[in-house]
Each structure stands twice: as C-alpha cells, then as structure tokens.
C-alpha cells in the first residue's frame, strides 16, 4: 500500500512498456541481472537458514555474471563480430570458479557450525560478535 501510495510503481510503467516494445538489447539483460541480484540480496537478508543464504549469494553472483556477459557481448552492443571482446565472459568464468570455491568453503563452515550447534540458523551464529 505504502509503496503504491508513493506513486513510484506507476512511474515504472512507461519504462517497462518501452522495454517490451524495443528489440532485445543490453538493457533487457541488465533488467534480468538486476532482478537476479535483488532476489539474491533479499534471499540473503531474509533467510535464516545458512543454506538459503548461500543460495542468495549464488543468485547475486549470477546476476553480476549476466551483466558482465551482456556488457561484453559485441552483438548486443551492435558492433558485430568486428572484435572478439571476450573480457566479460572470462571474468564471468572466474566468478563461477570463485563461487564454486567459496561455496565449498562456506558449506564446510556451515557443516562445522552444525556439528557444534546442531542447527544452521544463522541468527544463532553470534560467536564472533564484537
């Protein structure tokens, strides 16, 4: 209600209409990436289950990956195949790699936490509080 009262959602209507009427370009990918990113952040902020938070992280990273690839793609930028332009794809590969490594470490921590506390509720993980 309050969100509707501000009128902001209505301001997005012409933006969405513009997107749906134009051919597929960088902006469409960015919207997808932004949705993924937002969904990931919301997942991280709301889930109490450590595994859910890890999934949110994956969503955030993948949202970023979509952006990298979209910005890097020569087709999408309308320059044709004149340049190879693989920078974004390579960074995306790195991110995937790092995400896998990070997921492995995070899962190990989570498993250990479970062993010690018999739960994966991150609200109970206050041992490192200052």
């Amino acid at each position, binding site marked *: 209600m309050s969100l509707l009262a501000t009128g902001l959602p209505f301001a997005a209507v012409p933006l969405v209409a513009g997107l749906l009427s134009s051919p597929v370009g960088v902006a469409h990918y960015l919207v997808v990436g932004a949705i993924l990113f937002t969904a990931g952040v919301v997942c991280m902020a709301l889930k109490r289950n450590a595994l859910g938070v890890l999934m949110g992280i994956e969503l955030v990273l993948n949202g970023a990956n979509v952006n990298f690839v979209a910005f890097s793609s020569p087709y999408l930028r309308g320059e044709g195949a004149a340049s190879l332009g693989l920078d974004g794809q390579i960074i995306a590969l790195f991110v995937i790699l790092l995400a896998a490594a990070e997921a492995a470490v995070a899962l190990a921590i989570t498993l250990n936490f479970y062993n010690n506390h018999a739960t994966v509720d991150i*609200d109970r993980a206050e*041992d490192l509080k*200052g």
Partner: protein
Amino acid sequence: MDPASQLPMLLGLAWLAPLVSFVAILFFGPRMGHHGKNAAWVATAAIVTSLVLSLAAFGTWLSAHPVTPVSHGAHADGHAADAHVEQGGHADHGDHGEHAEHHAARVPSAYSGDWYTLYQGGNLRLTIGWYIDALTVLMFVVVTFIATCIHVYASGYMHDELHDVTDHEVHLSDGGHLHRPGRFPRFFQALSLFCFSMLGILIAGNLAMVFIFWELVGICSWFLIGFYFERKSASTAANKAFIVNRVGDFGMLIGLMALWGALGTLHFADSTVAAADGSAVTRPGLFSLVRPAANGHALQVPDGMVAFANADEVGRIAAEHNGRPRDAADEIAARIDGWRSQGIGRWLLFIAGVGIFCGCVGKSAQFPLFVWLPDAMEGPTPVSALVHSATMVAAGVYLVGRFYPVLTPDVLLVIAIIGGITLFIAATIALVANDIKRVLAYSTVSQLGYMMLALGVGGWSAGLFHLVTHAFFKSLLFLCSGSVIHACHTNDMRKMGGLARVMPWTAGTMLVGCLAIIGAGIPFVIGLSGYYSKDAILAQALSYSQANPSWSILFYAVAGGAFLTAFYMFRLWFMTFAGTPRDHHVAEHAHESPTVMVAPLVVLSVLAIVAGWTLPGGFGIANLIEQAHPAGTDTTSTGGFLFGALTVPAEHLSHEGSVHVTATLTAFATAAAGVLLAAAMYLWRLISPTVVASMFRPIYSFLAHRWYFDELYDAIFVQPAFAVAGLASGTDRGVIDKLIDGIAWSARQLAGLDAWIDRNLVDGLVNATATATWNAGLELKKLQTGRLRQYVMFIVVGTVALFVLASMLFRAALAG
C-alpha cells in the same frame, strides 16, 4: 782520607738517617711492637747513627784542621788567595793567612758541592748540595747530640701514650673527658722528621735548599706543638706558631727574590757546572759575589745588583749599541764601578739582607714575631726542649751566621736593634711569669735576642758560640722542668717549693743550668759555658758602643739583660726547689724521675759546664767556630748609609785588655746583683714579692700581660682579619647565596609552570585523543552484532544510501 769527599758523605748520611726512621715509622709505626713501643728505638737508633756519623765527621775535620789558639794580630793581615779544591766538590774561602802557613797544603775552610740537580735551565739552577765548614760540623754534633738526649728522655716521658689516654684537659660537651688511643709512634715519627729538617738546614749549600727545610721545620713544629691537638690551646698554639712563622717567611721570600733576580744564584759558595761544550765553568756564589777575593773580601754591592738596580740606564745603553751586545756589555762593565760609587744597588743589598733576616725573626722568635714561642709550650716537654735549644730557634741564628758575609752594616744594625729589643722585652716578661715552662720560654727568647745582638754588633763568633752553649744549657733546663712537671703534675711554680729534698738530681742539674745561663764563673779564671759566651757578647757590644757612641744603648741592653736573666732564673730555682713546700698535696706526690730521664740531665749538665772551656793547646769550641769565620768579616769595617756612618769593629778587638776587663766585670756584677736580689726576695724573704708587685702595680700588670702584645696583635691583625672574614662571609651568605638562591627559586617556578603545561595541555591533548578513540571504539563495537542478516541489511542500506547521496551530489554529472 780526603775530607773534601769524606765530609759530605758522612754528614749526608747523618742527615738522611732520621729520614729513614721517619719513613719507617710512617709506614710501619703502629706495627712496631705493642702500641708501637719500638718506634722509640727506631727513632733513637737513627739519631744515634747521625750522632756517630757527625762525630766521625768532627774527627775528620779536626784531623784536617787542627784547632789552634787564635792569635789576634794575624787576622788583620789580610787573606791568602782562594784555595780551590776540586775533588768531589768545590771548596772556597781561602783560609786565613796564618793557617795557610801552618799547613803545607792549603786546607780550605769550607767545602761545597752538589749532590743532585733538581732543575737546570737558563739562569735557574736548583740543587741539593752541601756547604760544610767548621760551624756546620760543630752544629751537626750539637744538634744530633741534644736530639739523642731528647729521644732517650722522650721514650720515658711519653710512656703514657703507650696505652689509651684520658686527656683531663679536654672537656667534652657531655661533661666527660676525652678518651683516645695513644700516639706513641706518631710522636717519634714527627721527631725524626724534625731532626731531618734541621740537619737539612745545617748542611744546605744554597738558600733555596735552606728555604725548603726551613718550611719543613715549620710544619714539624706544627705537628709537635699541636701533638695534643684535641686541646683547644694546643691546636691554637700550633696554628699560631705556623702562621707567625709564615709572616717572617714572607720577608724571606722577598730577600730570596732580590738575590735571585739580581744575582741569578742562591748558592753560598762558588760552584762548578758543566758548560754546553762540556768544559767545567765556575759560577760564583753569593759570598764571592758580595765579597770578591780580588777586593780583599771587602763588602761591595755586586755588579749584578748594581746593574739590576740601574735597569733603566742599562736598557738605554743596550739600545744605543743596538745589535752589538758585546759593546753594550763592555760599556756597562766599564760604568759599573762609577754607579756603585754613587750608591746605586745598596738598597737592594739592604733589602736582601733584611728580607732574609725577616725569616730568621720568625723562626728565632725575635721581636715582633716572638709571640708564638711561649705558646709553643703546649707541646710535650721534650718538644719544648728540642724546639728551644737545638733546632727550630737555632735555625734563625744559624742562618744569620751563615749568611753573614752578605749583610751590610746597616742590616747588622737592624739585627742588633731587633735583638736588643727582644732580649729586653722577653727578660722583663720572664720576671713575673709563674709557669715554669713559660719562664724558660721567655728566657729562650731573651737569649736568642742576645745572639742576634751579638751577630749584629759584629760578634760573629760570640753569637754562634752562645748559640752552641745555649743549646746545651737550655735543653738541660727544659728537661729539668719536664722532670719537675712529671713529678708535680703542674706547671705553676706557686704550688712548688722545697723540691730539692725529694728531687736532688733534678735540683742539682737545674742549678747547673741556671748558673750556666747567667754566665757564672770566677772572673778571669774559670766559669761555666755561659760565662765565656756571654762575656764575648758583652765585650763585643762594648766594643761596638765605643766605636759608635750613638748606639751605646745596645751595650746597656746587654748588661741590663744579664741582670734580668740572673734574677728570673734564680727566682725560678728558688721558687721551685728551695724553701718549704707551698702545696702539700703536690709535695707529697713529688718523686725523683726514672733513670732514663735523669741520665740525659746529668750528661747535659756536664756539657753545660765544660762546653765553653778552651783546653791547653787551644782546643775549644770558641776556636773551632773561629775557623769558620767568613772571609773578610773579621776586620773592622765601616759603612752604612741609612743610619749614618757605622763602624763594625773587628771581633778580636773585643779581646783587648780594657774592653775585655770592663765587659767581664760588668757581666759578673750584673749577674751577681740579679742572683742576690732573687735570693733576697725568694730565699731569705727580706723583701716580699707581693709588696713589690703592689708597689709597682701598673708595671707588674703590664709585664704580667706580656706587654699586651697578644692583645695588641689581636686588635691590630686578628680582629681586622675576623672583621674582613665576617664581611666576606656576610657577602657570601647575604649577597651571593641570596642571588643563587633567587636564581634557583625562579628556575623552580619556571619548572613548575612547565610541569603544569606538560601535565595539562600536552598530556591532556594526548589523553583526550586516546579517550576519544577509546569511546569511538566502544560505540562502534555495538555495530558488530554478529547477526549475519543484519550485516547484509547494512550493506544494502549503505549501498543504497551511498547511491542516493552520490546521485544527489553529482546530479549534474550524472545528468550530463
């Protein structure tokens, strides 16, 4: 053997033996037997060694210089040329012509040389050397002999010091008396150093060496007079003796500077030194500079002194002959005699003579510096005997005698006047003194005045003869008084009396001493030692008065002094030994002293009798001293520019019939009158001393207060010195200390301010930073909740907030 090499060796060893003893006792004294008992044996052994060596030297001297009767006519004949003996040393002073005829080989009358050169550079040459003549040898025997007696006596007298001592004269603040360990070795250590110093003065070959040992004697007297230094009176007396002597030594330094500056040498005799090219060069000594042989040993102002006194003229001549120093030297040499005849330089010679005499005034306790000697009685009695007879006070007379050739008639008159004043003042004070040692002390001062007067009126032999005889009978008298004090435990003659019955040996030997000092004898036949020496002094004084009628007061001083001497010496003897005991407590405890103390008395009394005798054949101390008579001083001389024309008559003239008879009869009459008056007052009690004292109350009180000399010096010197010291200390305390205190106070205040700034501002700033950081940390800590989801919210909100902020701030940029 050759005396020129043997005498310095024997006397040098005799001189050093007490030094060995001093060093040994200094380092090992307390370990020498129980409480250092054997220190006495070490010191005595050393001084006996000295005595034996001195006697050996005496024998050597006599074998080379047989003592012959002096035939007076020959002295006026002039003198043979100098006979130099260059063997192990240097000899000068050609013997008297008469003696030279007697000996096939000319025997010099003095030997001199140097053992060791302390420093040589330019004109400056300091040596340890010897000057040995008949007087040196004789004084060595006398000093070592009397010192031996006193060492033996002291080993008995000082036995109290062998265990812990309770000094009843020192009152502590708690009302008790001082307890201290005995100081037996310390006493003999100082005694040895004293003997070493005195012998050093006797043998010294130059004035610098005399001065060194002069000061050593001074410091030894300080040690010994202040032996009971816990007693206020003793430490004061020691300081007084030392300070008063410094006053005289100041004059002596001036004399030394005058001689050195003008003549460039302090050697008595000519000395042989190696020149730069290795050849031997003879440097003239003081004696041959002042009395050149070429001039018949007549006194003249030395060239160096004339040139020194006329430095302006010399400088002008040198400037005229600029670049030709040889010409300048020639012209100066040519004009020296002219300058001398104008009298240039004679003041310098006068100052040199009076300066050296000033030192003798202090050491020999002459007016006006005699005040220390009576106070020196605070020392142990053996010290008094040593100081008063053979060592310290003899040093002054000996130096005047040694330095005699350099003294001009004016200086001699000053010496005679000082001697006359001294002998009169001291004799009058001795008349009323009641302390037995003080009577003897003033008697010593008076007799020293005699010697100085004798030297001053030209009686060189007479004065030194009296020095020798006085050494014997005065040490005898002091040791006798020590024996009396040992028996009575008091110095006050008013508590004594009748002691002759309990102390026959002491009484008898003291009577001999009294008779000797007054010059008792049968006129023209025989007498005790004092008879000969005192007659010689009287005769010479009479001879001088006849030659200089305006100074005939000197003869009356001597004659009056002889009367006073006889009176106070027999007053002493009668009060102490004759009559009935005045204080029964004292008389009951009195006893004869132990043998170790009596034996030296007997030996000394024998010598006090015979020391003046001349044996058939001419051997005698008087003739022995005559051998050393400095060349040129045994003839009548005239001169003087300060006090009018003065004639110093030749000494042999006083032996002429008329003078000699008058002098002897005067001496006998005055002495007899003095003894009779003393007997009338104190033996037969015909005249009551108290009535006489009340009749002449002002005079008696004046004399009893010692002419108020101590009070006078106190008012003139001591109080102003205290006032200046008080002013200085007041300035120090009131101004300088206050100033420094003020500076310190302000520095302190400034430091306080600094400290406040440091504590409040600097530290405050640092602390405030720390506190702020701390507080910020505490606040920020709260952010770290440990809630993961909250962190995510922070990140999101933070990012959004940054984005909003950036978009608001950089709207234009974003829009562009």
